């Protein structure tokens, strides 16, 4: 599992108790160095730690070492992506984490209304596909075969960071991509392998996609021009992206779509 990476990795770590952040930072740095990585930069912001490291080995080995550090939850490890999750409004996220200043090609976001698993920052979306770099998912719905799938992955030695069913979608897709499936193929497979209700978005290093369950149970609308694709649960969210009148598309049951860079 995992992917050979040459170059810098960005690691996003969160810890529950803010007073632990300096010890978590120190021990995480030590763990990275021990794994053969070189720390380029370290920054902390209350419960959040961001490390930029040069690391040549297997990302899975590094991730496995980091989660053994007490208090560490890894929100993401990636070469091109970072997961930022917190409690508050999108405007507050922008002020606190500088989300609006990040330059890039694509991004996914989510506001969680918790239904089943624990309510904390760690259980918020997006979910990173531990330990695969640069694969993240946001999901609306409930997976009814979550526990069955989770047991199957755990039997294979996979480590889950949360009790949230959405985390398994990221892991599932990462597994399919690692097996050599294309993104669209992986999304199509998920329509058969995931039970329950879902509309989800996935972001990879070079792709973006959505899948919608066979019942069309959860909303999704898209608007697309030659330059921009915007996807949201509701049209009101897209109205802020496009000033002009753009055709709104509502994907139907069992539909998947991908965009590749």
């Amino acid at each position, binding site marked *: 599992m995992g992917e050979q990476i040459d170059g810098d990795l960005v690691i996003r770590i969160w810890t529950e108790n803010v007073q632990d952040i300096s010890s978590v930072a120190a021990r995480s740095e030590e763990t990275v160095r021990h794994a053969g990585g070189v720390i380029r930069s370290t920054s902390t912001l209350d419960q959040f730690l961001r490390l930029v490291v040069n690391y040549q080995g297997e990302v899975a080995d590094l991730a496995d070492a980091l989660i053994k550090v007490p208090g560490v939850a890894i929100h993401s490890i990636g070469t091109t992506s970072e997961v930022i999750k917190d409690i508050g409004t999108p405007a507050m996220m922008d002020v606190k984490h500088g989300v609006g200043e990040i330059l890039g090609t694509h991004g996914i976001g989510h506001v969680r209304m918790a239904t089943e698993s624990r309510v904390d920052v760690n259980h918020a979306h997006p979910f990173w596909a531990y330990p695969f770099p640069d694969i993240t998912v946001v999901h609306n719905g409930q997976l009814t075969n979550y526990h069955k799938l989770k047991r199957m992955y755990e039997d294979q030695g996979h480590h889950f960071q949360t009790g949230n069913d959405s985390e398994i979608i990221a892991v599932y897709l990462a597994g399919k991509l690692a097996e050599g499936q294309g993104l669209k193929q992986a999304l199509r497979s998920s329509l058969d392998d995931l039970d329950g209700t879902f509309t989800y978005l996935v972001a990879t290093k070079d792709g973006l996609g959505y899948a919608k369950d066979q019942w*069309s149970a959860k909303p999704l*609308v898209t608007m697309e021009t030659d330059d921009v694709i915007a996807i949201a649960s*509701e*049209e009101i969210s897209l109205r802020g992206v496009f000033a002009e009148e753009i*055709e*709104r598309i*509502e994907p*139907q049951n069992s539909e998947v779509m991908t965009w590749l860079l």
Partner: protein
Amino acid sequence: MAAKGEEITVLNPNARHNLGVAIFDMCTIRFEGSVGYYAASMLDGPEVVIEGNAGWALGENMMAGKISVSKNAGASVGSTMRGGELFVGGDAGARAGISMKGGSLIVAGNSGFLTGFMMQKGRIIICGDAGEALGDSMYEGTIYVGGSIASLGADATIEEISEEELLDVLAALRDHGIENKRSFTKVVSAKKLYHYDTLERLEKSAL
């Protein structure tokens, strides 16, 4: 806000939810732009015109009146509607006319998955194609489809359309400027899932 006979124009609705809900006075409301969820729901009397798209459950539980949306309607358009007429100029999403109990739902374009699910009365006209499981578990009412049907739902069946009915459908479409459709497939309940007595338990004991 709305009073008898008034004409109201709403500018920049911006796809917001719950616009024009539970209005019982005879008036005309015009939305210049898209509306969000449950627009013009629980309506009893007014005429509502939407220049744009609608989100989920447009015209939910309408009792009487007229709604027309110029572009697409989201899922569950006209759900549980009991009367009046709802016209969609573009496509309708999944579960259009779910549990419909009367009135007319007309879709100029295509209609999504489970259209007419558990329909109990009324009429759905789809000029384009219907998605999978059309008319699933419908009790009563009629669905007319101008295009193809991806699949029929449980207990839905195709029945020969009479000339009189066809003329009725064509007349309803003509009111919306649709003249190019000439043939329709009629879908009704096969009633093989009917396991009900016609009387309620208390009614029976009264006999």
